[in-house]
């Protein structure tokens, strides 16, 4: 941890991160555009909604995370909850 003259890695430059994210956004936009060009087979009626999978994927993940966060208030306990931390090596204690 005391490498003073450490080399700068790829994601250490904010510019690279931004580029990556911009590229990612571009692909997302492209995928939605393709949805209007290409004809998808429809198995269920809701699949007719334009960009159904995109909307569903986004909403599903947001819902997932929001519910999971709420679950924490009910389910989260401190690490030693079951009270058997004996013999466990902790690398860094804070």
């Amino acid at each position, binding site marked *: 941890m005391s490498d003073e003259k450490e080399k700068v890695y790829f994601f250490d430059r904010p510019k690279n991160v931004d580029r990556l994210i911009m590229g990612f956004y571009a692909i997302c936009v492209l995928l939605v555009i393709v949805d209007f060009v*290409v004809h998808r*087979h429809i198995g*269920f009626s809701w699949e007719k909604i334009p960009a159904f*999978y995109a909307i569903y*994927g*986004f909403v599903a993940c947001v819902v997932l*995370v929001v519910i999971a966060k709420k679950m*924490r208030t009910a389910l*989260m306990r401190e690490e030693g909850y079951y009270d058997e931390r004996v013999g466990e090596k902790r690398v860094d204690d804070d």
Partner: protein
Amino acid sequence: MIELPPFLLYYAAALAVAFTRGLQRQVILLAAPVVTGLFLWLFISPGSEVTFSVMSFELTLLRVDKLSLLFGYLFCIASFFAGIFSLHVEDTKQHVAGLVYAGSALGAVFSGDLISLFIFWELLAISSVFLIWARGTERALKAGMRYLVYQVLSGVLLLAGALIYVSNTGSLAFNHIGLDAGLAGWLILIAFGIKSAFPFLHTWLTDGYPEATVTGTVILSAFTTKVAVYSLARGFAGEEILIYIGVTMACFPIFYAVIENDLRKVLAYSLINQVGFMVTGIGIGTALALNGAVAHAFSDVIFKGLLFMSMGAVLYRVNNINGSDLGGLYKSMPKTTLLCIVGALSISAFPLFSGFVSKSMVMTALMEEQHGYFWLLMLFASAGVFHHAGIKIPYFAFFHHDSGIRTEEAPPNMLVAMAVAAALCVFIGSQPQFLYALLPWEVDYWPYDVTHVLAQMQLLFFSALAFVWLNKQGLYPPELRSVNLDAEWFYRRLLPAGAQRTVRLLSDAQRSIVTTITTRVQGLQKEFDKSPMSKYYLAESWPTGSMVFWISAILGIFLLLDLFGLGR
């Protein structure tokens, strides 16, 4: 044509490994899966059978059809890369346990009758627990104990179910059982259900696997649940209840996976989620769905093995696998990072990776059978997989903020093992016809069409977009050192607490009874002291010594009487 149950090769290897060291042992470790795999490929074909009689039972130790062969190949592949991954390990008991465990898995899938299945079922349990205990921590010891209780319980239920089944039907053969078999069917289903981590019966997995050794978890993840999936596919195909169970299994663990800190535990939850897809496929029961279930088991063993290996490599180097403490490891472990990403893409079912060609069969089967709501839930689960296993695992371990940890790249054997698994993921994903040719049921299915690829890409990219957006908004739950309550709470907390409370209640009751009695006695004593009788010598309180004296006196008198033959 040599017909030999393949588990014997593994047991022989386990014996050989126990008595060798160094290079010799490493050769045996690698030769066992290669030789067994070739043996299965070249000499064993559907229809082969080896039986032998014991105590008037005809046990079928080798019954071969395409279903058992597929799992046979799979287990050889899994123990091959797990063997490479654990080449550096010097602990003899881990190697022996690993080989016996893999051999028992082979034994189970080639068992033609319920008694042999039961024997291998228990051997799986007993051999695998050593992979947890080998960690050597007290936590591992206790988790292993709980794991073993579950596994043995599963075996006992299987045996009970099998015995009832035999007495009802007169047949030991392990073929379709179904719930029509009544009590026997239910007992066997629950036995299979424990090993395949049905909801509420799953905690042995999320409790035990993260506590196993670096290499142990990789081996564990390959066999137990997949033997159970195989058994369900053979015994309970088309049971509708399995759809409900499978969908639940696919959905609930992803919530836990999002908030779990121990990254190997995240993978354990994600393992249940993947088995959910298989169980659903088995519940649907059409040829396509069943093929999807076993094909997904095939892909899952490889990509989940790869993910467990990459996290194992991190644990091996950093000695820590908590998301809260890791980050920025791509700087020191770039190759591991890359291989982990291949595993992440595979489990997320990206086109050209293995998950895509197998999971899509189950999804298509749901659609063909018009299970609309289940299909939506499974789509939710698919998005969730990408979220927790596809993004979270690589992101929190290798990227995220720089934790300042600088370490070395994983050892060469680990890299080779991961590379083998990664290559298989890409190969299966891009050339699925080879896997499809091995599938047990005849189905004409091809995953790559525009609809499919586009739909999947949209689903995944927008799941990733949700991740990016939530992170930018600061809404993403941070990794916190914590324990999240799960079904295990009932027996790790409620039961012990209940027991403690009962004990306390009983001891309180005892104390109050004793106090009541003593006060009563004291009261009587006082009353007695007031009476004239208390003045007599015998009414005084006597020391214990005098009581002992009088008892020995009485005994002595009896002895004398006896010696002189008086009183007879």
